[in-house]
């Protein structure tokens, strides 16, 4: 998006300069330079190269000149692969990430191998900027569902309603590099609107790319907003304790989304020849998710001990 944002006159969502229609409600974007005239005008499309008449050719999907072969392209919807527009800064540097990692290894508890802390060897520690959207929107959700509120003989009674939801700076992930569980943990750790003078502690981080064309990305975003709306309905707006058959229809308004890159540290460590991965937020060192081995010996010991204990109790019971 370049220049000032344009907004759809029907749903107020932000539209890109090269959008022919609003991505949310499909309203046609206004045409600039439409000219009307009082008399019919006859136009022959001329080739700028040789002056011959040009006609639309299927092979080119555009008007082409039969003589010199030049092609005149027509404005059609752009569907580019886009990059992140904003970067959130790293406020956790590599040293702090290492410390947090070591502390985490030590805090895993007794069921992990005793030498994990000493034998685990950090192989790589890499800064990553993973991609997602931060969006603002209003959603007007009409819903209908069965819930247990007001039920008579059947377990369920039908309910309906309309709810206005609004979203500010909500992060929706678009990453393929991180797992959904990792993302779910990382998202709450970010400040989507940081102070302008926050210094970025890392400048050589790998920036993930959006590997989707814009139309697909937008469809994903709209789906994500609808998922969020259903979740919020479940949590706050449905009467009763249980529900089924939740149906929703959404009017989305004023959607504006920024593509952002979010900072994370990806650590790989080796323990007894095997690689494990740990991901850490670039803005909160305590926000960490990783894989770690369990100690088979220790778990077996506890299970065995438990079994022995149960056997003893039963034996005692029989004797008494």
């Amino acid at each position, binding site marked *: 998006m370049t220049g000032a944002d344009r907004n759809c006159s029907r749903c107020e969502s932000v539209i890109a300069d090269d959008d022919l229609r609003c991505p949310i409600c499909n309203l046609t974007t206004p045409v600039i330079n439409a000219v009307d005239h009082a008399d*019919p005008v006859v136009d022959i499309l001329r080739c700028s190269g040789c002056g011959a008449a040009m006609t639309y050719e299927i092979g080119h999907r555009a008007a082409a000149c039969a003589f010199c072969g030049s092609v005149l392209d027509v404005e059609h919807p752009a569907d580019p692969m886009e990059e992140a527009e904003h970067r959130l800064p790293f406020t956790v540097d590599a040293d702090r990430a290492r410390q947090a990692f070591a502390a985490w290894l030590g805090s895993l508890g007794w069921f992990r191998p005793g030498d994990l802390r000493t034998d685990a060897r950090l192989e790589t520690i890499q800064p990553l900027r993973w991609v997602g959207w931060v969006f603002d929107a209003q959603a007007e959700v009409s819903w209908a569902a069965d819930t247990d509120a007001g039920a008579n003989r059947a377990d369920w009674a039908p309910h309906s309603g309309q709810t206005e939801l609004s979203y500010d700076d909500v992060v929706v992930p678009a990453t393929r590099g991180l797992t959904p569980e990792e993302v779910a943990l990382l998202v709450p750790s970010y400040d989507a609107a940081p102070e302008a003078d926050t210094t970025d502690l890392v400048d050589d981080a790998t920036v993930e790319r959006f590997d989707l064309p814009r139309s697909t990305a937008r469809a994903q975003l709209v789906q994500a907003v609808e998922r969020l709306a259903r979740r919020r309905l479940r949590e706050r707006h449905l009467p009763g304790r249980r529900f089924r058959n939740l149906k929703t229809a959404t009017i989305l308004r004023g959607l504006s989304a920024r593509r952002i890159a979010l900072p994370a540290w990806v650590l790989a460590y080796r323990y007894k020849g095997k690689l494990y991965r740990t991901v850490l937020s670039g803005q909160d060192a305590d926000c960490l998710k990783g894989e770690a081995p369990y100690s088979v010996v220790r778990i077996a010991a506890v299970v065995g001990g438990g079994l022995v204990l149960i056997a003893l109790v039963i034996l005692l019971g029989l004797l008494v």
Partner: protein
Amino acid sequence: MALAPLELSCESCGAKLVVQATQRTARCPYCDSPSVIDRPVTPDRPDPVFAIGFSIDGNRARVLLREYLKGHVWAPNKLREATAERVEGLYLPAYLFSAIAESGYRAQIGENYTEMEYDARKKRTRRVTKTEYRTLEGRHRCYVDNLLVTASEGIPNSELEGIEPFDLSGLRRYAPAVISGWTSEEPSLSREASLEHARTESRDAVRLELRGFMPGDSHRNLQSTTTLADEAMDLVLLPVWVCAVRWRKDTAPIRLLVNGQTGKASGEIPVSWAKIAAMVGGALGVLGLGALIGAILGWFA
């Protein structure tokens, strides 16, 4: 909207060019120059906003048409083997409609429950499923969009529906370059008539959506009223191959359409009553034969 033909002069050679009121393009009979005519805008004849360019050529359209005809097992064989007499590419004017649909609905929602019931005859209790109906009233709002309705008197909406859907991601901003050298029509239906079509289609679509919106195990007596707000309707030119197929000398050719973007063919195909009669006769014959053999072997004795 019977309008007089336009008399213009060819921009290339200056010869007189007579253009029918329904045509947006013309070829000069003397120098073959392809012209695009841009008339002053009226409410019933707005400027096209979008166009979808042809991506299926005439030969491919003929092949797809043959395959389509072959697929109709119940059509007369002569028609199944017929080839098109004429296949002409045409940019058909249609309106692309969108709106916000607001509906109020009321329905009886069936919620199932099970009860134990004593069966006096069998002298035991059994579990039966019963339905309790509860009234549900509510409101529903959604966008209705990507709806296409014809703007041409020549191709009715039902025929256009036959070759839908068009892939609207292939929509381009209208420019003479998309239609130059091709036949293109001006809208011949009034805007009001097309708008009525679009509204009817929208309400039908919402009614269908509401059926899926009802909770419960079942529902009955669903009543709804839908109002459309924030309507928008833009003229779009659609690529259509119009095919005339003559399969009997004594009848006029029938018209079939092939979607110029996706290749989907459609048309009203007559069925062969002779084939159906033969089929029914054959089935009866087999039954009769079976009965005869049965009687001889004494199955029914």
